């Protein structure tokens, strides 16, 4: 039992260490350091050695001293004997090793002797491994998007691995791509249009959805069950099958290339989910309040305005944010409906930019940053509202 746990522990912890060091090496490479090898064998051996030593020493040494000791040894071997590296790289390695040693500190002989310890060790390290790996895989494209927007075409072609930014250059040179997309490509206008369409969609959707959701949640009428099930089924129907008929009809009515046409379509596509989310919330409001209001001779309109609305601010804001994000990110309809650059939304404008093979990619990435930042900010800031909304209604996507 004990040997098995020990072997599992030594192997999985050293693999975890290897992945940490490798990610650091990738990041260092992107800052212009010449690294050609992950040194799999060396790192794994060192990792196993450290893990075993850690268990051997156990509590005989203070954990801070122990960690510093391990970190120093590893940094010395990796940064001095195996390859000569600049100081900042070694500081990073040192930090990683401190983190690693603190993590493995609790796995002493006693711990590894307990029941299921081999499984627990594997699960613990898989968790750590997952956190590091998923963060890296998810954040890397965003990181690349940001960095690329600050580079020049020439620098990107000479060395695609150079992610370093020279912050000493002039402000105007550093933000050149942003100046260009706002001056030459009129991105200011597109931001306004996107904002207008998204905010407009939110307002119109709420105006339509709140009364309908109230009726579905509270009132009895013929066809109510049919309506509430069909909301979900309609929600499942994809935009792509609507595109051709809408395109033809909108062309004939002259609604294509108009922001108003886009607004109608966005509203209709977000309505089902908005009604679904809102009616769920309205049902949770105690009925007694409305009964009291009926006694006071309030009509339905008054009930919605005076009782339901004030009580469901959280739900309404979560629906609003959510509809805003759908409308802001929407691409298919803006591709189909807009072909006049004067009425482009941001997404459509970026796609239009990329259609020209001559467009330098840093402009494309600057545009992408501009369209991404508002949604990410809104999302991070209002995460609590949005997450509950997402799980209740499940976003279209």
């Amino acid at each position, binding site marked *: 039992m004990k040997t098995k746990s020990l072997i599992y522990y030594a192997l999985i912890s050293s693999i975890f260490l290897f992945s940490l060091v490798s990610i650091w090496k990738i990041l260092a490479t992107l800052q212009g350091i010449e690294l050609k*090898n992950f040194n799999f064998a060396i790192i794994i051996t060192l990792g196993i050695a450290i893990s075993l030593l850690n268990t051997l020493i156990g509590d005989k040494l203070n954990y801070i001293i122990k960690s510093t000791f391990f970190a120093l040894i590893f940094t010395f071997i990796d940064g001095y004997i195996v390859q000569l590296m600049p100081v900042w790289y070694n500081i990073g390695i040192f930090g990683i090793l401190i983190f690693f040693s603190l993590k493995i500190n609790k796995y002493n002989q006693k711990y590894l002797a307990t029941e299921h310890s081999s499984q627990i060790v594997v699960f613990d390290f898989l968790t750590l491994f997952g956190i590091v790996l998923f963060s890296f895989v998810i954040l890397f494209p965003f990181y690349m998007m940001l960095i690329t927007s600050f580079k020049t075409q020439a620098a990107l072609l000479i060395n695609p*691995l150079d992610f370093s930014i020279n912050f000493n250059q002039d402000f105007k040179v550093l933000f050149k791509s942003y100046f260009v997309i706002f001056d030459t490509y009129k991105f200011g206008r597109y931001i306004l249009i996107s904002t207008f369409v998204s905010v407009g969609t939110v307002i119109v959707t709420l105006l339509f959805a709140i009364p309908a959701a109230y009726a579905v949640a509270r009132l009895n009428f013929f066809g109510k069950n049919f309506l509430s099930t069909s909301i979900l089924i309609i929600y499942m129907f994809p935009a792509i099958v609507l595109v051709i008929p809408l395109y033809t009809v909108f062309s004939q009515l002259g609604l294509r290339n108009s922001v108003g046409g886009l607004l109608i379509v966005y509203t209709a596509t977000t309505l089902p989910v908005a009604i679904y989310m809102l009616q769920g919330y309205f049902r949770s409001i105690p009925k007694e309040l409305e009964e009291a209001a009926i006694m006071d001779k309030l009509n339905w309109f008054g009930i919605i305005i005076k009782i339901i609305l004030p009580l469901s601010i959280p739900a309404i804001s979560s629906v609003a944010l959510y509809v805003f994000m759908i409308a802001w990110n929407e691409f298919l309809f803006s591709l189909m409906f807009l072909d006049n650059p004067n009425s482009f939304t941001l997404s459509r404008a970026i796609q239009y930019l990329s259609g020209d093979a001559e467009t330098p990619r840093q402009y494309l990435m600057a545009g992408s940053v501009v369209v991404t930042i508002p949604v990410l900010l809104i999302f991070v800031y209002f995460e609590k509202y949005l997450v509950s909304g997402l799980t209740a209604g499940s976003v279209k996507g």
Partner: protein
Amino acid sequence: MSDTLSKIEKRTAYILILPAVFLVFSIILFPIFANVWISFKEVGLKDIRIPEPRAKKIVKSIKDNPDQLKVIYKLRNSSLILEIRDVKFQDKLPKNIKPINLDERCRVKSNKIYCEFGNWEAKYKENFQILLKSSDGKELNKKELKTIKPKLTGKSDNILLNTNFTLKNFKKVFFQNEFFELLSTTFYYTFFGTIGSIVFGILTAQLVNQKFFGRTFMRSVLLFPYVGPVVALAYTWELLLDPYSGTLNNLLMNFQVIQEPLNLLGQKYLTVNFFGFDLKLRLALTTVIIFEIWRYFPLAFLFILARLQAVPKELYEAAEVDGAGPLQKFINITLPQITAVISILFMIRFIWNFNKFEDIFLLTGGASGTRTLPINVYEQGFTISDIGMGSAVSIVIVALLLIFMFIYFKLIGKRADEN
């Protein structure tokens, strides 16, 4: 008393839901039915423009004659295919102006010129001229004349409204469109995308369900790909995967993982030697599926996490007392608790992936073996400009979707009966 109340209630309910129902009906349900109509017609992109009579007004002064003006209307039929019948023309004149030598098709009535031009064949063009004279000797105002726009009306056939139907489109969809290739690509994409996003959703939810430093931050980060705009993310990936100047290929080559750059989005097959067997891997399709998983596993993550947090702690404590390890706990407690949510997720993601258009369109445009049914709708309708074909493919998609939903509700209904 209560009878009238319930009547009022009903009426209010209908008033409250009517706007929403009307909008959803006209923008979502009507197009689905319209697809059926269009799919049985031979309609091209150019046919859907309604022919319009148009006139461009040009005002010219006449030399040596300051109290007269010449107005030229460049008349034309906007359509290259269809004729316009009974074209009627109407233009207003400022008060002090009278036409002279008016064309015999026209007449003047209280400061307005009315003309009847009869039928215009396709591509019809005419330069129509009117001479104007001041009636009170005052100078003629060219600007005022220019700002008044003539009105033209006419009748024409709308190709969408006639009743000529054909089965040609469906014949083409099934027999000339590499239909089974399309279908299999769509199913590969949908199936592996769905399974992948659910598997990663389970892994990450399990991860975030534990306590560690930076857990809320981690939860936000995991949702980034899902909330980010697809255009920005797709172009970033395209740049990342570029065979020559892309970061990924250069990194892999730098660390000697691969010898030659891989064209991850532009190469249909990659031959991999696997224990002496040559395996052909659909490279571009795999890349697109990976993007799809990367972008949509957060949905699965959110759903499963919400479910996991609702699992009573006592279950795990009891299992611990019984001596169960982490693996047993996961298999015997966690998995049974999340099967319901997984089956819902499978359904939702399967249907949405089946209809996914933007992601593939932006990454590969449907090239190198990534052409799915939704991409084909776009290609037929707007690249080849055959609206009828595009609609026919849409109909196939809707039919398949209805079949999925039917199967799903059958299965779910069965399970609900069993419980």
